């Protein structure tokens, strides 16, 4: 019977699920993911985790609890670093330890370290170690690793083209996001697990679509351009997400077609605390694009989010109308 390996539908699930799914399945395992985020998961996570942790980490705890009893293994990779000379955040490096010492009754945990800070040779090494739980055939594991990487890259390319896959959003929403019909372009900046988890962000993407907004997320931007911009910073940004935020913001400011920028911030996120401030300063200094921050925590109320979103969209519309009106006046005058 196939071994069941559980993956929490939280944190870097939203980045790497296709990679991990195809890797495990090629080695004959059955992949089980936790339910979509709901109140039960949120409550369980908040109860289990230390109060001071950020919401995404608390949710992760809840998702892990959701997997207990359903699987033989739970995959909690120790993501120390996923890019050269960068870290994600301290919590990712210590996540397996937080989980192991907080939640009772866990099945076997696969917590191999992935550390690509110095070089990416470690990725194959990690894959071989993870794969050894399911196969003793090294060549098979290596093949599974290479195939899953190919699959992952195709996936990323599809996201860049604006087509969000099923595991990120439902098909309906994904097709609406890909449509790009209106003339209001709003960038939504935030960690993948905030931007695409509809329960956490109170369905902000659907709400924006209802307001006739073209949504642009960081994943849809050209990484090369983003990285080029980020490399112009005075000091090298040593956080994976930090680089993406600041590079994306600088790139977005150069495009003349962005009408608004929303920063989805997690309360208690150390990285967000700094990056949001740096992004805001850049946007305010170098442009007059409307910018707002929406903070997510376990107490977030729908009404509050809706009000602020509506106010923000209204402000963008007023601004666009003003500039349309200004154009008309100029045309009449000439």
């Amino acid at each position, binding site marked *: 019977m196939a071994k069941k390996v559980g993956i929490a539908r939280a944190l870097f699930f939203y980045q790497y699920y296709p990679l991990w799914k195809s890797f495990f399945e090629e080695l004959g395992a059955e992949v089980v993911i936790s339910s979509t985020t709901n109140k039960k998961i949120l409550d369980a996570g908040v109860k289990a*985790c*230390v109060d*001071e*942790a950020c919401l995404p980490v608390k949710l992760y705890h809840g998702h892990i609890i959701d997997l207990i009893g359903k699987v033989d293994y739970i995959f909690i990779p*120790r993501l*120390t670093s996923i890019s050269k*000379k*960068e*870290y*994600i*955040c*301290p*919590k990712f*490096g*210590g996540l397996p*330890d*937080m989980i192991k*010492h*907080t939640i009772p009754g866990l099945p076997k945990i696969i917590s191999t*370290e992935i550390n690509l800070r110095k070089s990416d040779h470690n990725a194959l090494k990690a894959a071989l170690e993870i794969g050894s739980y399911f196969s003793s055939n090294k060549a098979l594991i290596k093949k599974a690793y290479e195939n899953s990487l190919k699959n992952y890259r195709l996936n990323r390319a599809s996201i860049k083209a604006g087509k969000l896959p099923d595991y990120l959003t439902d098909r309906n929403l994904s097709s609406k996001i890909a449509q790009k019909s209106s003339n209001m372009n709003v960038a939504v900046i935030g960690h993948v697990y905030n931007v695409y988890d509809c329960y956490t962000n109170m369905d902000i993407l659907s709400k924006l679509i209802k307001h006739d907004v073209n949504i642009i997320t960081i994943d849809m931007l050209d990484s090369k351009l983003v990285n080029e911009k980020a490399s112009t*910073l*005075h*000091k090298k*940004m*040593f*956080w994976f997400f*930090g680089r993406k935020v600041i590079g994306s913001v600088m790139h977005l400011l150069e495009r003349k077609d962005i009408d608004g920028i929303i920063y989805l911030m997690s*309360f*208690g*996120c*150390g*990285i*967000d*605390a*700094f990056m*949001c*401030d*740096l992004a805001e*300063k850049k946007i305010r200094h170098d442009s007059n694009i409307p910018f707002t921050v929406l903070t997510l925590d376990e107490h977030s109320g729908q009404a509050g989010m809706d009000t602020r979103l509506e106010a923000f969209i209204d402000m963008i519309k007023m601004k666009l109308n003003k500039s349309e009106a200004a154009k008309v006046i100029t045309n009449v005058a000439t």
Partner: protein
Amino acid sequence: MILTFPHMGNTYITAKALLDDLGTNYIVPPFNNKKALELGTKYAPELACLPLKINIGNFIQAYEQGADTVLVTGGCGPCRAGYYCEMHREILADIGYKMDVISLELPDNDFKEFFRRIGKISGKSNFFRIIKAIKNASKVAIEVDKLEKLTYHIRPLEIRKGSTDKIYKAFQHNVLKLKGSNQIFELIDKTRETLLKIEIDRDIKPIKIGIVGEIYTTIDPFSNVFIDTKLGKLGVEVDHTITVSNYIIEHLVKGIIPIGKDLEYAKAAKPYLGTMIGGHAQETIGDTILYAQKHYDGVIQIYPLTCMPEIVAESILPAVENDYRIPVLTLIVDEMTGEAGFLTRIEAFVDLIQRKKGSKVIEERRALSWN
């Protein structure tokens, strides 16, 4: 160029020794105070950690006294301290304070840039003078930490309450009037002699509590609501493993010269937190275990709100508490921290430990009583 630097406990004494010996112009910011914290809270991001906020306040107060250049240490993550220099730069520019920010980073193969920055702050000093200044400043750090450790030992034993603080505070103020590492060494020696002359009760066996956590809030008394003094007054001898001199030796010196680092804490922490995840998280876990093995009566973890590595350590400490039977109290500080609330919790913690210890002593006496 008039330099200034952030406050963190007694580091100003080391900085002073270094800059005096290099002949650089500098201003020591006013000691950490409420106004500095207010200013920092106003201009820094709301969820930034406390050290960033206080440091911004330090720089603003120094700017008002004529400083135009900020000297800080850098880093490369994962924790935010490594990016403080850029945050300082952006925040100060944003509020219109024209200050240059120089960050001394561990080279990362760019030794040329490292020495260029050292050269920038050393004015006319030649290479040998710079090396000598760094050597003496490191020695000052070590001697100041030894002096502070002496106060931890004497304070709980002093017969006249407050004697230690009177002498130590005088030292912390008088050192500002001196110039150069030699004068500072002299004052340290004199202060040590004076401290050793304090009348103490040699029969007291004080409770021993280890302090672990984030480096800034464990070292800086203003930030941790003067916890060392408070505990001393309650009859507790404290111990800190994270100190400035320890940091200089383990991270800066051993980061450049390949001498074996002291990794006892990492060995101890391995079953709980086997990797370096940033900040002093591994030290927090490892040192708590080492304190337990050295039969300390309790451990207090201190960290600023939102400190990411310490949050990870905090979630693991209950398992350590359980396995090693050592009580651990976690205290989290931010700009809203109330002294009274803190004191209540510390007193309760010490109370509990005293009762636990008292009952052990009573049992021992009972065991011997029929002899």
